[in-house]
């Protein structure tokens, strides 16, 4: 009872004192709501037509909605003729292997950077961040000759290796921030209590870093899954992944099939949004690097 009473008294007086500030903040609030509405419209605007086109039958200009809806495009991408299933399988397994490999090389590096200070750390950081900034095309055009010589061009293995350049930096970045909040004392204690290296890792280290590994893995997967030009260059069109199929259709005239393939391409992102939606509303910039 008492606290309620108090706030009732205090509020009017506060308003009276800050009335000038209040008036100004009202126009501020209207501006803020306008910005919020704009954000929602702008972010959703390019996505919504993709959903409509994927399920549209005949849709003539200048109708705002299709004359009829149809599942033709969806059925088509599920039919063997579209090669979409093959592309999902190829692209998905490349992304899985690239994710696994970049976790294997990236977790130790993340630990070194997050936990230790050492000479040349700046240089190491520079080298690890460089592939994020320097375009993959420039790098891959240079190394393509070597890939051809070693028989890696046009193969799943070659494409996976090329994707590693893009995925590894993200894994290292995520894991180094995970390890910078990590207390290695627990490992020490486990070792003192008689756990060997493997047991310490399985029972102490891994459970603590697991959420970070999950985020890093999702990063890596979605980055590999989304690679277009690097895949095209190294595979020479012999290894078809979903973005290759999609770009092929995007320059054609079949909008419903393009849209349906775009949704297929988007599927892992949607899964990740659903998994991480808990964190998306809040205070973390952990997802900030996706797709960059």
């Amino acid at each position, binding site marked *: 009872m008492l606290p309620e009473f108090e706030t009732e008294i205090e509020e009017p007086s506060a308003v009276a004192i800050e009335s000038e500030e209040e008036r100004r903040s009202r126009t501020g609030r209207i501006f803020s709501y306008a910005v919020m509405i704009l954000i929602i419209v702008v972010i959703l605007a390019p996505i919504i037509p993709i959903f409509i086109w994927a399920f549209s039958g005949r849709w003539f200009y200048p109708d705002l909605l299709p004359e009829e809806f149809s599942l033709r495009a969806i059925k088509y991408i599920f039919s063997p003729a579209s090669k979409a299933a093959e592309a999902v399988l190829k692209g998905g397994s490349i992304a899985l292997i690239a994710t696994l490999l970049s976790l294997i090389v990236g977790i130790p590096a993340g630990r070194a950077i997050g936990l230790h200070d050492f000479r040349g750390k700046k240089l190491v950081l520079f080298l690890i961040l460089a592939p994020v900034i320097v375009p993959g095309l420039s790098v891959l055009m*240079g190394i393509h000759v070597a890939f051809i010589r070693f028989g890696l061009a046009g193969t799943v293995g070659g494409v996976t290796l090329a994707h590693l350049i893009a995925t590894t930096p993200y894994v290292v970045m995520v894991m180094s921030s995970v390890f910078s909040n990590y207390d290695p004392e627990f490992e020490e204690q486990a070792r003192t209590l008689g756990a060997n290296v493997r047991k310490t890792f399985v029972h102490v280290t891994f459970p603590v870093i697991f959420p970070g590994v999950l985020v890093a893995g999702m990063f890596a997967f979605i980055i590999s899954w989304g690679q277009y030009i690097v895949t095209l260059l190294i595979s020479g069109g012999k290894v078809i992944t979903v973005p290759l199929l999609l770009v092929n259709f995007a320059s054609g005239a079949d909008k419903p099939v393009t849209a349906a393939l775009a949704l297929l391409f988007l599927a892992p992102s949607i899964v990740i949004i659903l998994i991480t939606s808990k964190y998306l509303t809040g*205070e973390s910039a952990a997802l900030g690097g996706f797709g960059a």
Partner: protein
Amino acid sequence: MEKSIPASGIISKTLRFEMFDELRERLHVPMLLLPAMVVIIVLFMGGLIMGLMQSFGYLPMIGKTDFNLNGYINILTDESFLQSLAVTSWIGFASTITATILAIVTALVLRQSMRGKRITTFIYQLNVPVPHIVGAIGIIFLFSQSGLLSRCTTQFGLTQAPADFPPMIYDKYSIGIIMEYVWKTMAFTGVILLAVLQGLGEDYEDVARTLGANGWQRLRYVIIPLLMPGILRSSILVFAFAFGAFEIPFLLGQRYPRALPVLSYEYYHDVDLGFRQEAMATSMIIAGLITILILIYMKLTETYVRSD
């Protein structure tokens, strides 16, 4: 070193053990870094060095092994290359500046506690994991001359036919490309700034308010300087991407002049293998300009980094 250890006895054993331990300690960090460094040095640095050598004319697969500057001279004296460079710079700067300004405004709005903030912030970050190619297709569906927007203007009688709608895809000013980059990177930068703002809290502003600073002064002299490291970091990433990415100008760009990454890929895929050197020179110029930018950025952050 072997000499300093006594030849026998239990002491030597522990000493040996300690030495082994020390060695392991010293190699600990390098061993942790080794696998990732192999990936980056062999694949990434290797790729860049091989690209550099090819750009200077070392192309053994077509029987050329002499070093020369012909590739660079040819493209730098080529009108169409210079036009491509201009277009690409325009795309890079226009996208980065627009996206950064929008990111600052939206982050400042989303920082306030108000109704609908949670859902707006959720939607705000939705497109961060969306691939650029999907964004580009959405932009085509929206802004092409027979797209959704053109349908709207025709419904409202502002236009009569698709041709009346101003071209925003494959257009002279690269509007479609810039819109895609802004759409995708506004939230990317905004999320980073939002995290910085939430970390700062209200203290700095409260102090400034107590000292009599008005809203604009608090923004200009308190918030923006505190955001500067985040702004610089993210806008460098945005610029590097907008300058060097292939997909978006390939899907949304005009035929001529093409963006530099598209140009270099077309040189590379020319049936005339003689263009390989020009392709490599173009891609090295892209990588080089971006590297210069990173160096400027590192210099800038040195002056902007907070000393706390």
